[in-house]
């Protein structure tokens, strides 16, 4: 079936540390993956994406890693800041064109 999941519902990190949020997906036909950040009371916000022909992509303080062998996606946030506190969703787009979201991981940043 179609599903995208996250390993941990909540991740708590110290300010300044690096964060790693993981995601497992099940549809091997998906060729496009996205990470979203959702702050409280707001809509999801695009962070970074990666195509299936890549295994790593870097943005500003964020890196997405894709391991197609084990169908695993991760989001790394460097030097985590209080403003990074939010729910993070991975999502995939299979050949149906429909965005499929995972269940979300809550990132809590401790000062």
């Amino acid at each position, binding site marked *: 079936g179609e599903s995208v999941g996250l390993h941990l519902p909540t991740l708590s990190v110290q300010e300044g540390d690096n964060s790693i949020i993981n995601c497992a997906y099940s549809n091997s036909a998906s060729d496009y993956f996205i990470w979203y950040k959702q702050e409280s*009371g707001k*809509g999801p916000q695009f962070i970074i994406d990666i195509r299936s022909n890549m295994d790593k992509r870097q943005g500003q303080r964020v890196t997405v890693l894709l391991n197609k062998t084990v169908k695993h996606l991760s989001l790394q946030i460097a030097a985590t800041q209080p403003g990074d506190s939010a729910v993070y969703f991975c999502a995939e787009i299979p050949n149906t064109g*429909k965005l499929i979201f995972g269940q979300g991981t809550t990132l809590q940043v401790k000062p």
Partner: protein
Amino acid sequence: DTAVSQTPKYLVTQMGNDKSIKCEQNLGHDTMYWYKQDSKKFLKIMFSYNNKELIINETVPNRFSPKSPDKAHLNLHINSLELGDSAVYFCASSQTPGGRAGFFGPGTRLTVL
């Protein structure tokens, strides 16, 4: 200027009522979406329109009827509201179908009593 806007932000109503949520995007995108987020934060696509044409219609009860008067607007009308319809509804847009849907509205929290 807000890229994707929705009204109202909060909607509280009784079971059996009919209500509408409006969405507008000023990004010039061709594709718009409605998503439902449940109490566990799970997001699921409901509908997608491309240039006013319906292209994705998930297994949503036919009490939900989207309407796109033009490609900048996608409204959601819900008939005979049920308790299980309580959720946050997000409108989103992308440049093309199957696009990243990178622009979401602020959401409408619907509470059915």
